[in-house]
Structures are given as structure tokens and as C-alpha cells.
């Protein structure tokens, strides 16, 4: 059974391909696993070898006229070269070996994490960014990291995800009447599909400590004083051995930095040197 990690990256004002390259470097530094990318944008030459497969976005580019380019993400299921796939957001760093995650995930046909952590390793209970979920009783799924096997169930799920993504105004109008999002959200769309298919218990596990990720949105870090950017509140440094320290807390697992300016030349260079690129 082939398995690997797939990222969807489409550049806009932000360089998501560069983020994907950094993420791929972090994966290669800690895991022996295939990584692929779904994109129409060019990959810098020195990073091309990070990806086993560079896949063009199939059919038409549904996000062509959008600044927030999430409209093609439902295509991941249809183009993945793997039998088992973990789909990851590009603005993430994998800071540890996740072989045990694969073992756990193999028990599922699809899996979404339903809880995420702050940088102090506390489970985030704050619903600041999840009001659409709580007020509309939507399943609390995070698409940032999710898993699927090639199977009828996942095919079905992604079929519905395509339908919701392409008609999000219609579906959100029915399922997200309160705290209606300003734009299409993959988390909300996946939650709607989960609700339609009534499969929450099949694709999540509230008791599982992993897979999860550290979610660096500033309002859910347990702070009394919150700034626009989390990087204004706590220091960050990446050691040459790739230990990432945030606010004096060593990070592990998967780190979802969420802010594009986190990707500095210094961080990229540290990874390049560690991987001898």
C-alpha cells in the first residue's frame, strides 16, 4: 500500500508554493515518507526533488478568480498518487516522526482531527474562530491535517465536498445560518459534509491524543492580551538541529504557523542546511 503526504498550493499574494517547500523540507527532515504537491505554479529548481509527484490541478482552475484559493482542494482525493494520503495545509512544519500516526490512521477510512493545541501544549477550548461550528452545531473537524484511504466512503465524502465547495452559498445558507462565514472555508464545508453523511464518529476520535497540530492563531493561545499577529507576543527561534522554540516552549508534532511572514530566509536556510540542499 503506497502512502504519502499531499499538499495543495496555489500562489496568490502569498507564496504558498514556498510554504509547501518548507513544509516538505520539515517532513523530509523527520520522516521517510513520500511528499507530493498539487499546483499549477512553478516549483523552484532546488526544491523540486522534495516532491515525488508534482501534479497539475485537474480540470479547470476553480480558484482562478479568487484571492483565497481553496476551491480546488476537493480535487486532492481524485489526483492523489497514494492509496493512503495525509493532506496537509502548506503553512505547517512537521517537527517529529509521525510513523505512529500512520499506524493509528490505518484503522480509519477517513480521519479528521477534532481538537488542536496551543503552543503551550494545551488543548484549545476557545471557540473564537469556531463560532460557525458551535452556533450551528456543526462537527468540529479540522481539515488542516486529514487522512483518507482510497475507498468508497472517502470517494463519497469527497464527492459531497465537491458539491458543497462549488455551491457553498447554498449549503452555508442552510447549514450555517448563524455566524455565516465571509468566504468559503474548507473546515466548514467538511463539517457540513460530515453532518450530511452523519459520519462524525466514523472519522474523528475525541479521545485520541494524535493526530493533531499546534494552531497558532493568536486568539486561541490562552492569552489575556491578544495581538493581531502571534509573533508580536512570543519569540520564535529555530535551532540548527531543527528544534523549534516558541515562547520558550519546544514544539513537537505538527506546527501550524498560520502567518506567511513566519517563513523567513533564516528559517528556510536552517532547513536547507540541515538537509544539505
Amino acid at each position, binding site marked *: 500500500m503506497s502512502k504519502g503526504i499531499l499538499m495543495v498550493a496555489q500562489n496568490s499574494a502569498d507564496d504558498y508554493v514556498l510554504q509547501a517547500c518548507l513544509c516538505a523540507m520539515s517532513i523530509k527532515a523527520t520522516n521517510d515518507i513520500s511528499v507530493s504537491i498539487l499546483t499549477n505554479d512553478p516549483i523552484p529548481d532546488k526544491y523540486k526533488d522534495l516532491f515525488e509527484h508534482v501534479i497539475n490541478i485537474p480540470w479547470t482552475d476553480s480558484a482562478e478568480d479568487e484571492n483565497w484559493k481553496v476551491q480546488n482542494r476537493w480535487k486532492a482525493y481524485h489526483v492523489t498518487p497514494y492509496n493512503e494520503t495525509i493532506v496537509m495545509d502548506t503553512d505547517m512544519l512537521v517537527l517529529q516522526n509521525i510513523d505512529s500516526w500512520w499506524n493509528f490512521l490505518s484503522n480509519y477510512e477517513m480521519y479528521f482531527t477534532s481538537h488542536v493545541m496551543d503552543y*503551550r*501544549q494545551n488543548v484549545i477550548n476557545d471557540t473564537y474562530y469556531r463560532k460557525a461550528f458551535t452556533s450551528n452545531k456543526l462537527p468540529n473537524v479540522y481539515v488542516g491535517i486529514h487522512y483518507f484511504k482510497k475507498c468508497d466512503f472517502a470517494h463519497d465524502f469527497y464527492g459531497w465536498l465537491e458539491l458543497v465547495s462549488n455551491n457553498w452559498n447554498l449549503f452555508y445558507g442552510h447549514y450555517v445560518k448563524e455566524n455565516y462565514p465571509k468566504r468559503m472555508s474548507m473546515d466548514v464545508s467538511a463539517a457540513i459534509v460530515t453532518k450530511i453523511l452523519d459520519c462524525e464518529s466514523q472519522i474523528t476520535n475525541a479521545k485520541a491524543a494524535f493526530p493533531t497540530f499546534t494552531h497558532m492563531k493568536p486568539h486561541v493561545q490562552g492569552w*489575556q*492580551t491578544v495581538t493581531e499577529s502571534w509573533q508580536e507576543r512570543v*519569540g520564535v527561534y529555530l535551532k540548527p538541529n531543527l528544534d523549534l522554540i516558541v*515562547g*520558550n*516552549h*519546544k514544539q513537537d508534532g505538527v506546527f501550524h504557523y498560520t502567518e506567511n511572514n513566519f517563513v523567513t530566509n533564516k528559517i528556510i536556510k536552517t532547513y536547507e542546511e540541515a538537509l544539505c540542499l
Partner: protein
Amino acid sequence: MDKGVLTFARNNSQVDYIKQAVFLAKRVRKYLDLPTTIATDSIDYLATAYPDYEDIFDQVIELDWTNTHSLKRFYDGSISEKRLEFKNDSRCLAYDISPYDETILLDTDYIISDDTFKHCFLQELDLLLYKDAYDLANFRDYSEFEYVSDTSVDFYWATCVFFRKTKTNKIFFDLIKHIQENWSYYNAVYQINSVTYRNDHAFSVAIHIMNGYQSGNFAGYMPGKLYYTTDRDILLDLQDKRFTFLVEKQHHLGEYLAIKFENYSVHVMNKFSLERIINV
């Protein structure tokens, strides 16, 4: 294995920590049946004020007399306050000077009223502290006791610490010394931004480092619960293990609510009202 309590008592111009230590030692003997060692820079005063001190304390350890530039506001209820010297920089020596293999390190203003700490000796972990504490006022913002600052590391109380003499604990206390010696650096890096050095903060940072810069189980939890009243409250009466406090009222400066509390030990931060009770 030698077991005992260690306490530090260094008087300033208005707070008699030695008097508190005497009070503590007597209650330690009564409720825990343990000897107490006092570490102090005022042995002459101790001998003069308490001629029977050798019966009260198991050992007396002399600390060097130093003037400190550390000042702290000491409240006596919600209205009265004084800025006084705060000599709290000896606690990092606890490991080196303790005469015991198993030590309970206590603040002098911790009023022992039960035998819960006996359980320290029956468990396997070599270092115990309180991470959580319970304010008897029950309305004050206790976020400063959750983390050492808004963005920083978990807060641990240095008020009551159990430790065994182990190589790892030696490293831990040496690390606290290092943090104390370089306090301005750690104060800044850990975003504590406190003018006054606090042992709670130094212990918390050291635990965080010993945990590999993460939350972890390097330090276990002291048995029972740590109850406290701040120096904005007043200890009005103490009959054996029955406390009467005047606890400040929320939004009513200078007004208090009387509460009774009994059968549990309490950390009484109002040193002046504690001294008045001891004097009775």
C-alpha cells in the same frame, strides 16, 4: 532516611520572619511530628528572643547577612501598605544546606493545620510542588498564578516544596541558582517583567527547563490542596486549626467578609496580621 522541614527566615525592618518560623516549627512538630531546621541571618536575635530555640529547632543554619535592594509592597488588608526589604534570595540554597535526606521546604507564613504532608514521604517522586492553589476569597483574578506571565510558562508555587537529595534535584537547585544569578536575563526572556525577584518564578522556569522546555512531569504535585489568602485579607483569629479571616470584598475597597476555615493548612500572606495572631 532523615526527614524534616526546612524554612528560611530573614527579617526586615518590620516583618519578623523568625517569629513566624518559631510558630511554624511548633505546628510542624504538632501536626507532622517532624523536626524543623531554620536558616537565618539573625542567629543572635533568635537566641535572644527565643532562649529555648534549641528545643524548637532541630538545627540552626547561619546565612550571611546581606543587604538587599529588593523591595516589595507588603499589605496589611486592602488599604494599608508598606514598601519593605524582601530577602528571598536564599531559597536556592535549600538543597545544599538541608540536613535531611527528605526535606519539606516551607515558607514561614504557611500555617500547618493537618498532617497531609506526611504523604510526601510515602510516594516515589523526588520533587513535589503545588501547581494549583485556591484563593479563599474566591473572586480574585488568579491568572498570575496560572502562568508566570500571560505568554510564559506554567506557574509553580515555591511555598511548599518536597525534595529528596538526588543528583537530578542537585541539578535542579543549581539551575535555580543560575536563574537567580542571571535574573535580568530570565526575567526578560521569559517575559516575566517583574521588578521583584520571586522564587515562584525561578522555580517555575527551572521546572520548565528540566522538562525539556515543555510542560511535563519532572515535578509532581504536593499532596492535598494549597489554600491561601493574600495580604489584602486579614487573619483575625486562629484557634488550633480553626481560622477566622476577613477577606476583602470585591469592588468595595476597605470592606471585608468574615469567613471561617478549618482543618486545612493555609498560606497566610498578610505577615502583619499573622504576627498579631502569633502574639496573642
